[in-house]
């Protein structure tokens, strides 16, 4: 606050023509601490880590020249590593697709439902968001357990008269997908609900009055108009799933291993920093690419919406 008070006094004392420069310098001064913090603790460390991916590690552990792309080559083209890269992408895609389908009913109840139900849905959706991912994965370990004491298997056994076979989904890709959907669902429901709440009810009424059945009004009016929220949400889900560590580690086993697991092994067990850097770079690239694509799509929809509004 002392900076703000000092700056305020300077501004009120300054003559009008010099105000522009003062405003500029005060704005910069207020921004400086946050920017400096991010520069030292985000930018410098990230570039050091990602930069090491094109360098060579000597037997003694020093990282330096010659520059090489060998680590990327190994990560992307050797079968053992390539499998993990592809599995990471496929788990992320499945998680995104399932999240979209589950998110719409929840978002619609939040945006349009009766107040009590909307509130209840909001609470149940947001509550897991503030519970540690460790606790949520532990819950899925209990639910999906492969033995008779797994909750799902126990329920199936007690519901049916004959003894059904055990469902063995734990420690597979699908366990990771199920848990990831649960972990990231709030992050797609909330932006979709925001988009839905902004759609004028007149548009949907108009569609209905012109004879569109509800499902058609949903597909032709509601869905396109909620596209920005959907895109933003699905991007977050995809990017975060691709970068996850806890879910594959706790419910994935070796069959559900992902890039995050590989990263931790290379850094903490193998101590191969260039390889760690290469894995990190690929993970950052996935995050940045999905983000760029999403920004582009949202721009496209907003521009189209605006130009259609003009006609």
């Amino acid at each position: 606050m002392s900076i703000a008070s000092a700056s305020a006094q300077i501004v009120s004392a300054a003559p009008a023509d010099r105000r522009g420069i003062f405003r500029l310098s005060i704005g910069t001064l207020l921004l400086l601490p946050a920017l400096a913090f991010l520069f030292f603790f985000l930018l410098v460390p990230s570039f050091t880590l990602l930069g090491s991916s094109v360098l060579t590690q000597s037997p003694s552990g020093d990282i330096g020249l010659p520059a090489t792309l060998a680590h990327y080559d190994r990560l992307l083209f050797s079968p053992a590593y390539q499998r993990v890269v592809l599995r990471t992408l496929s788990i992320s895609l499945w998680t995104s697709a399932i999240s979209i389908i589950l998110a719409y009913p929840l978002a619609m109840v939040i945006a349009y439902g009766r107040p009590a139900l909307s509130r209840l849905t909001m609470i149940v959706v947001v509550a897991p968001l503030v519970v540690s991912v460790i606790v949520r994965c532990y819950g899925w370990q209990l639910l999906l357990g492969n033995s008779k004491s797994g909750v799902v298997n126990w329920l199936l056994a007690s519901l049916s008269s004959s003894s059904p076979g055990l469902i063995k989904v734990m420690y597979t890709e699908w366990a990771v997908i199920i848990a990831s959907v649960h972990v990231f669902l709030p992050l797609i429901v909330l932006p979709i609900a925001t988009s839905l709440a902004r759609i004028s009810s007149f548009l949907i009424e108009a569609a209905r009055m012109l004879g569109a059945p509800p499902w058609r009004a949903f597909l032709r009016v509601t869905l396109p108009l909620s596209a920005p929220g959907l895109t933003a949400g699905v991007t977050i889900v995809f990017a975060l799933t691709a970068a996850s560590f806890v879910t594959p580690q706790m419910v994935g086993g070796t069959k559900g291993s992902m890039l995050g697991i590989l990263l931790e092994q290379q850094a903490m067990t193998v101590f191969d920093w260039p390889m760690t850097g290469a894995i990190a770079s690929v993970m950052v690239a996935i995050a940045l690419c999905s983000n760029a694509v999403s920004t582009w799509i949202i721009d496209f929809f907003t521009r189209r919406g605006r130009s259609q509004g003009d006609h």
Partner: protein
Amino acid sequence: MSGRLSGGGGFITYSAAMLILVVVAAPLVVVVALSFSELTFATFPPKGFTLVWYEKVLQDVDFRRSFVVSVCIALGATSAALMLGLPAAYALDRWDVPGSATVRTFLLSPMILPILITGLALLKFFSQAKMRDAGINLLVGHVLITLPYLVRTITVSLELVDRTLEEAAMTLGASPFRAFLKVTTPQIVPGIAAGCLFAFMISFDDYPISMWLGDAEYTPLPVYLHDSLNRIFDPSIAAMSSLMILTGVLAVVGLEKIVGLRRAMGV
């Protein structure tokens, strides 16, 4: 608004939503149910009702120390992020800064980067810089993940401020600083409080940063819980998890009370 979900389509939407809510709640419900079980193994179905596991957890010295560590880091990180984020968000909203869009993206960028990698990059940076105090390292890491959330909430709060009131105050002779303190601040405090609470929970629940930066002395609660899963097999794990769920539920109730959950989440 309530008329928009009616008829057959509305019924299907409601039923689907309720079904999904049951699945969403299931992992947490199962954990809580198990924490009261009288069995000595954390297996389903639970049997009887007992509070011994909670007693065991609350008497566990390591659990209590981890809890204190987590609360201190979350408090410290949230306050530090607030001190960095409030002036920055204010500057972006009110003062003419060139390239403000780029600066805003940069301030929000820790949200886009995978946290796992932010943590690992910091670990490497700290070891090269010979910074060996795990407490401070954890604090820095947690400021990094809470800062973007605070910047975003504060920005939204500032955008909602009625600027004509501020101008009126200044026309009536208040200095910009006084106008900010007396007119703007009361309007943004609830939003910022909600943002702080959310930031606190993000730090309190974090695992991907803490797993790299913690050590034997500074073990945040999620790391302690994760380590315990490999060596404790009785329901005290479930009791520990239930206590963390309780903290989360309290936070949600807090958010609902302060500004309303929909506004706190930007819906």
